[in-house]
């Protein structure tokens, strides 16, 4: 209980001090069909938050997941979900469908802006 009492003003303070990021993040569109991502590779600017919107055109439920970009979300057949990711250091990151990890996989490359 004490914990809650301590945590609430702290979090509230943090909320005020760190204004929410504007919702102007780039959204990258992806579809998954026959357990393959289309496109299965995207390039994003390094150091920025971004979103991936995934549309599931299969008849199975999938779990859109990435260990190194830290997202994990279920997407039902014909459903569309959005996941947030970044800011990423320059490099290549992988994502996959956790229910069909051998077939459905793809990569994100984060590039330094010129």
């Amino acid at each position, binding site marked *: *209980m*004490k*914990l809650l009492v*301590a*945590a609430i003003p*702290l*979090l509230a303070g*943090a*909320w005020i*001090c*760190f204004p*929410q*990021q504007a*919702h102007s993040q780039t959204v990258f569109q992806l579809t998954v069909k026959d357990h393959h991502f289309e496109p299965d590779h995207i390039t994003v600017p390094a150091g920025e*938050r971004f979103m991936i919107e995934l549309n599931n055109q299969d*008849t*199975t*439920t999938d*779990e859109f997941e990435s*260990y*190194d970009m*830290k*997202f994990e*979300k*279920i*997407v*039902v057949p014909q*459903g569309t*979900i*959005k996941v*947030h990711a*970044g*800011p990423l*250091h320059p490099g290549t990151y992988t994502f996959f469908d*956790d*229910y069909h*990890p*051998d077939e459905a996989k793809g990569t994100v490359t984060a590039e330094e802006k010129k």
Partner: protein
Amino acid sequence: MLGSLIIVFREVMEAGLIVGIVLAATRGIPGRGWWVSGGIGAGVVGAAIVAMFAGELSQAFSGNGQDIFSAVILCIAVLMLSWHVIWMASHGRELAQEMRSVGNEVSEGSRSLFALATVVAVAVLREGMEVVLFLYGIAVSAHTGFMSMLTGGLLGVLGGAALSWALYRGLIIIPLKHLFAVTNVLVSFLAAGMASQAAAILANDDLIPAMGYDIWDTSWLLSDGSMLGRTAKVLIGYTDRPMGIQLLVWVLTLVGLVVVERFVRTRPQSSAS
């Protein structure tokens, strides 16, 4: 078959670690078998219901429904785990000394059991939902190899359950005098880990500030994707690249629990709760 076995085993193991700790932490409290199995049952039923509405849940809260749901049930589990730690601080010693139901202890005990049964239900619900959706997916896509994948899934459930049981058997080797001290530490870390996971989920959706990303990167040492990394995530909330808010919430929860626990434990004995 191996693929589905691994996927299901992973999820069941994650819930099973929590169940194993709860079983050890409630040793000697009368009626705990019923409460724990009730928690598992409620979790399975809940998982099936939530899985049925997975599509609707995704769309709720402008697409953040799944995440908000996860964060809320994690917070409930944190509160229940905290309750248990504090309850144990005042009753653990008597429980260890007597190990039998003494009058009013029974009703007191069942309150802590309710808390832990809720934790079990939440753990089973979270992981179970993924298992249900996965197995349902296999069932509807009637391609060949259906039976072998289903067998794999069922073996995964059995394997996860066996691991949970093994953890419990391993923990209760600890002499009763020390058992509750150990389980209280484990439960405190579970609570801190769950609280920081909830914070990470909300911060990832930009609902709360992240306070910095990638505070460190230990993915070269223990990756979130590895079996050991997953285990560490369940037990202590490990992540290879934490956000600032995760660390803050983790430390606050753990320090808060230690302070309150010590306060309750060193308080002069009184008959009231």
